[in-house]
């Protein structure tokens, strides 16, 4: 979403560096897409109503969560099924810190990310040394456990004690995190969220293009070979896990300050599975994938509601999508759809040229 924002000044400043950057990204077309997306994203507040702006905000927040999961699956081959539960954990920590301390907002977000990163890593730790299947199972159980624990503890709303929940205040005080003065209005908050999202994508990109990315690629292709080449496999797997959890925690903090605050019923276990589905459908190897995933997850249900269709259809569609990705399109929609369209285009062109030759 934001790759172009960062590249803008770089292009103006140093053309050779920009050229290297463009080569890294893959093609001019991606950059063009990124620029267009950047313009649309920045112009959005002027174009749509408050409701759709809130949807756009949540799309941006969930694209961070999707990015974390996509990194895990695409780079290290690990599948985590507790990302939405971790998002709730991030929200809880942000609220607790928000009510308990007077940290400035950026520091609060950062602290939330770090603590969530530690918790997420601790959950994955026992399974990381075993196979991916065990990690998936343990995280699924963790998701269920966290969801249930959350319904027992509730989100902090300024009450006393470690849990910070007050039943008497529950009716009047929503579990919502104060926004900094600068981001008070909905438009400013949206732009702030987009900015943080951009930073997260940049962080991911720096990892993927740097030393960590090369280590991850080695692990993904062959773990024994990576060990033989001197890659510290456990460390880099843990690092990927910590990074994904960190991002999810930041997203949780942002979600806690978005309109309406947090409710304990907003993070069912099922959503962690749905997230996996949309991330797989969007595509795990490209940075576009998580954005597509967030659009599928947050924008599509609203559109369906708008058109009077039951959103349950989406759950079915996502299920079919997972099977389709597993069977035929491992790279996801972002790669598959353009390729399919290119194939279709070629087929149509061949048909027409064939018809033209016959006519002659």
């Amino acid at each position, binding site marked *: 979403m934001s790759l172009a924002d960062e590249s803008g000044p770089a292009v103006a400043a140093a053309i050779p560096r920009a050229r290297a950057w463009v080569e890294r990204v893959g093609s001019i077309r991606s950059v063009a897409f990124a620029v267009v997306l950047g313009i649309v994203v920045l112009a959005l507040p002027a174009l749509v109503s408050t409701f759709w702006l809130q949807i756009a905000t949540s799309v941006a927040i969930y694209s961070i969560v999707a990015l974390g999961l996509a990194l895990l699956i695409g780079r290290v081959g690990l*599948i985590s099924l507790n990302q939405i539960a971790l998002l709730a954990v991030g929200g809880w920590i942000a609220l607790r810190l928000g009510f308990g301390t007077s940290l400035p907002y950026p520091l609060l977000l950062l602290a939330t990310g770090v603590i969530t990163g530690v918790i997420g890593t601790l959950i994955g730790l*026992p*399974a990381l*040394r*075993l*196979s*991916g*299947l*065990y990690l*998936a*199972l*343990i995280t*699924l*159980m*963790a998701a*269920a*456990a966290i969801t*249930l*624990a959350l*319904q*027992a503890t509730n989100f902090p709303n300024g009450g006393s004690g470690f849990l910070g929940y007050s039943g008497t205040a529950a009716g009047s005080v929503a579990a919502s995190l104060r926004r900094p003065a600068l981001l008070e209005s909905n438009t400013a908050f949206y732009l702030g969220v987009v900015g943080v999202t951009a930073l997260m994508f940049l962080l991911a990109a720096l990892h993927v293009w740097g030393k960590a990315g090369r280590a991850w690629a080695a692990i993904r292709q062959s773990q024994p070979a990576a060990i033989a080449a001197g890659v510290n496999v456990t460390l880099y797997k843990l690092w990927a896990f910590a990074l994904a959890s960190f991002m999810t925690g930041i997203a949780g903090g942002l979600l806690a300050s978005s309109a309406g605050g947090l409710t304990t019923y907003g993070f*069912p*276990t*099922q959503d962690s*599975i*749905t997230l*996996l*589905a949309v991330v*797989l459908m969007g595509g795990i190897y490209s940075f576009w994938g998580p954005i597509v995933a967030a659009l599928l997850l947050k924008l599509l249900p609203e559109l369906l509601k708008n058109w009077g269709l*039951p959103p*349950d*259809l*989406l*759950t*079915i*569609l*996502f*299920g*079919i*999508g*997972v*099977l389709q990705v*597993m*069977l035929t399109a491992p790279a996801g929609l972002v790669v598959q759809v353009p390729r399919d369209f290119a194939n279709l285009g070629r087929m149509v062109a061949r048909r027409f040229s064939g018809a033209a030759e016959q006519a002659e």
Partner: protein
Amino acid sequence: MPDLRPYLVLGLALGGVFALSGVGMVVLYRATGVLNLAYGAVGAIGALIAWSLINTLLLPEWVAYLVAILFGGVVTLVYGTLFGPPLAQREPLVKAVGTLGFALILLGTMSWVWSYQAHSLILPTTQVGFQMGQVRVNLTQMIGLGLGIAITAATAAFLRFTRLGVAMRSLANHRETTAMLGVPVRRVEAAAWLTSGLLSGATGLLLSTLVGLDIVGLTFLVIAALSAALIGRLQSLWATMVAGLAIGVVQACLTPFDAISPYRTMTPFLFAIAALLWFGIAGRGLSRA
């Protein structure tokens, strides 16, 4: 110290059903390498179909229950036939994720057709019961525990002594070699899918009586069974059964303690974590995973 005996009865019944589903999952995993995460969803949709047959079509109850169990078997078999072979050569993680897709399809269908409102399904066996000391035990609870133990024993004997069972075990060891030795691989796998599906149908009915007929609740009760299966290392039927019973009993016996009662559903997770740590420390290999 509160009187734990009623909770013990409840826990043994629940644990028996966890054991039953754990065994159903382990059998399928051993034969096909697929860990069916849609197990709970299949049971839930079966129970909902039974509910509809009884309450809207007014069919006799036993017909509805039979249909529910058969439906579980058939729908699982259909998934296995369609998606088992193309994914057979992939790693277990990919196969498990495929069943998550299946679970989402079932979940979407359920909430679309039946919506999330609460339904209730009480097996007639719940009305039959007897007094044991001061605790009343009903027949459904007896069936839950009994079926858990009986199915474990029967499956263990089946895998050990019948031709089909031996074929399943050899499939678990090496699919290609088994095929070369003339075992009809697809047919053996189909048998495993069907059996596992029938078990999930039965599980769904029992759980909807013991716990309640709730789409999400039933679908994710699979997590307790998963934990049991994981403690059995996706391999040992008896360890799975014992773990299932233990999880059920511990979870139920925590109910009267107010301070931890709301957190008791975390029991399967804690059991699984403890097991993984133990496996890690003991440094024992885990099979086929």
